[in-house]
């Protein structure tokens, strides 16, 4: 049998398919690159001056606002993966392109102009600004290294704009659990929320497979664990209650439920929302919390609200919205 022509033919086939498949790949990449060019049109007049409910619109990836008086939402805010704002400052988390993932935290003033930017490793996850706008915190989680998929770890940063002092990762904070100083290298913090005094804060720490609610003190730089099984705390505007997600099930599809903890008597009660919420809730006023859930009808996310006292029914607040933040 003559092997030579068949060898040649095989080689020709390989070369041809390399050209076709390579060309196809290149074409797709070029197409994606073209498509990926910024489509976001940021409206320079969009600012925090208007009171209302700010949120991230998942269709555009940009921040939008719905005013209390109704009417169509104002669009054209900055593009962020995660957003939070109070009257004076906003925090916008963006993911920088490429691997490994990096998060860019942009601190914005009342007119949403950038006043500081910090880059940390990880994927944007949580963002909070104190009521005065002086202290900010964000959490990024590191995962997605193809080689190390067993666990994810979080890094939480705290920025004090009064002094300009930045703590890139708060995991070194002296921690007390059950009255004794706790030392472990596996501590992970996430979901900081600040009290009105710009000093006291709450957060979740996880260690040895358990999560604790910690109360921290910025001036003393210390933290003590208050209670187990509290994640992503969110302090009410009057500083009396904490909305949080509690792990209630081992079912990985629906592990959490929203609860509210009364700090005066440390009693907790579940909220009317029965679906599993993986979000740091935001207080829309002293009686209502808002949170994002996976969206319906093909939307990436929807924002819902429910009364903080556990009564009534959850309400679909903003279809397509996430990262709710009430600015008054």
């Amino acid at each position, binding site marked *: 049998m003559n092997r030579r022509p068949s060898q040649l033919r095989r080689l020709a086939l*390989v070369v041809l398919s390399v050209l076709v*498949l390579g060309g196809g790949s290149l074409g797709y990449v070029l197409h994606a690159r073209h498509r990926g060019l910024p489509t976001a049109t940021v409206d320079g007049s969009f600012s925090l001056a208007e009171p209302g409910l700010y949120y991230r619109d998942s269709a555009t990836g940009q921040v939008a606002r719905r005013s209390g008086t109704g009417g169509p939402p104002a669009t054209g805010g900055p593009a962020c993966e995660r957003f939070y704002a109070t009257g004076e400052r906003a925090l916008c988390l963006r993911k920088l*392109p490429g691997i490994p993932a990096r998060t860019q935290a942009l601190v914005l003033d009342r007119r949403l102009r950038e006043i500081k930017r910090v880059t940390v490793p990880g994927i944007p996850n949580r963002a909070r600004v104190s009521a005065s706008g002086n202290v900010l915190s964000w959490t990024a989680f590191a995962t997605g290294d193809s080689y190390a998929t067993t666990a994810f770890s979080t890094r939480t940063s705290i920025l004090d704009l009064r002094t300009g002092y930045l703590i890139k990762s708060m995991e070194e904070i002296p921690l007390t659990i059950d009255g004794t100083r706790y030392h472990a290298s596996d501590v992970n913090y996430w979901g900081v929320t600040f009290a009105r005094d710009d000093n006291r804060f709450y957060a979740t720490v996880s260690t040895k497979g358990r999560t604790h609610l910690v109360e921290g003190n910025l001036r003393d730089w210390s933290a003590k664990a208050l209670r187990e099984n509290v994640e992503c705390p969110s302090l009410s505007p009057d500083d009396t209650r904490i909305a949080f997600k509690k792990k209630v099930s081992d079912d990985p599809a629906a592990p959490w439920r929203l609860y509210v903890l009364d700090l005066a008597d440390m009693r907790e009660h579940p909220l009317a929302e029965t679906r599993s919420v993986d979000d740091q809730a935001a207080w829309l006023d002293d009686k209502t919390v808002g949170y994002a859930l996976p969206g319906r009808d093909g939307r990436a996310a929807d924002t819902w609200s429910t009364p903080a006292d556990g009564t009534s029914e959850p309400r679909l607040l903003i279809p397509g919205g996430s990262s709710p933040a009430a600015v008054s």
Partner: protein
Amino acid sequence: MYLANTGRPDAPPRPAGARRRVPATVVALGAVSLVTDVSSEMVTAVLPLYLVLGLGLSPLQFGFLDGMFNGATALVRLLGGRLADRGGHHKRVALAGYLLSALSRLGLLLAGGATAGIAASLAADRLGKGVRTAPRDALISLSGPPETLGRAFGVHRAMDTTGALLGPLAAFAVLWATADAYDAVFAVSFCTGLLGVLLLVLYVPSAAPAPPARSTPLHGGALRDPAFRRILYTASLLGAATIGDSFLYLLIQRGLDLPPALFPLLPLGAATGYLLLAVPAGRIADRVGRRLPFLAGHLALLGAYAALLFPVAWPTVVAVLALLGVFYAFTDGVLMALAGPVLHAHRRAGGLAVLQTGQALARLLGAAGFGAAWTFWGQGPALWTAALALAGALAAGWRILPAPAPARDAPEAP
């Protein structure tokens, strides 16, 4: 092109010893694996980011989605081995596996954000991977005389690992060029996967050279063979004393307080060691027999545990990564070269599948056990336990594993 020129010029008597060329089939299968691994590691590298960031899945959900299919892979592998043995359709079964994995990228592309579609695509990928492994290794082991199998597997594994190293780089390049268009990664991965399939079709000969003359089927599976059983027991025992790489890397990271950005470099270091040592390890295994290198590879792993029992410094990191490289080079392909010749050609794919599955399940058990020990006893005691367990398993393996000169190629059934 190198592949085209390697035809098979050595038809009649072959020059003896290790100087001989690696069979064309092995190089072809190595090229297929290289290209396929580029394709699959591209996706693996970006999948967590895509799911968590692009689709808003929580990391917990991702872990669940990811872990769900790993168990199923083991069972599918057994099936793949069985199918390949029935009628000697090694190439056809392997082809189905490679094709399924390549098409699964198209599924990812078309699924958009639908979780069900993504889950189905991931399942298809794992199914393909499970099905193809055993027939492919059987093809390698049937491609040449038993005394050169160590090197053949070494060459294949080195090429395979090269692909696994290049994949994430390719994904990185695509994401960089497109400002995070994950679908572009899937598209490129799909094209790369198709190329792998094409190489398999064109350059891997279809049938195993085993004579199909005997129409009487072999009774019973590979497990009937006492020599094979001993290999299986040893591999499983040693596998159960393996704690899993991620834990080793975690120990290093903890001990050194390594910045997270450097964390992915650890497995890269170990893989590079494996890549460089795979061929030399195979040659050594051909020369001195595979039993000793296989056990010595686990001794290197024991060395890595021992190094981590002391305070971690930078030299420790280098030592641990090098030892891990040695471990893989001397155990992975070498185990196939050890077991291949013991198995009759007609039940080789099935036998290798049983062996790989047994080892994989044992390792899963070992990692889970170590995780539990770490949680309950803390890191130090857990590592001591693992080291003692591995030492014990090594001692047992020394006794169990048949001494050299096992049966030659394809022994006749009694």
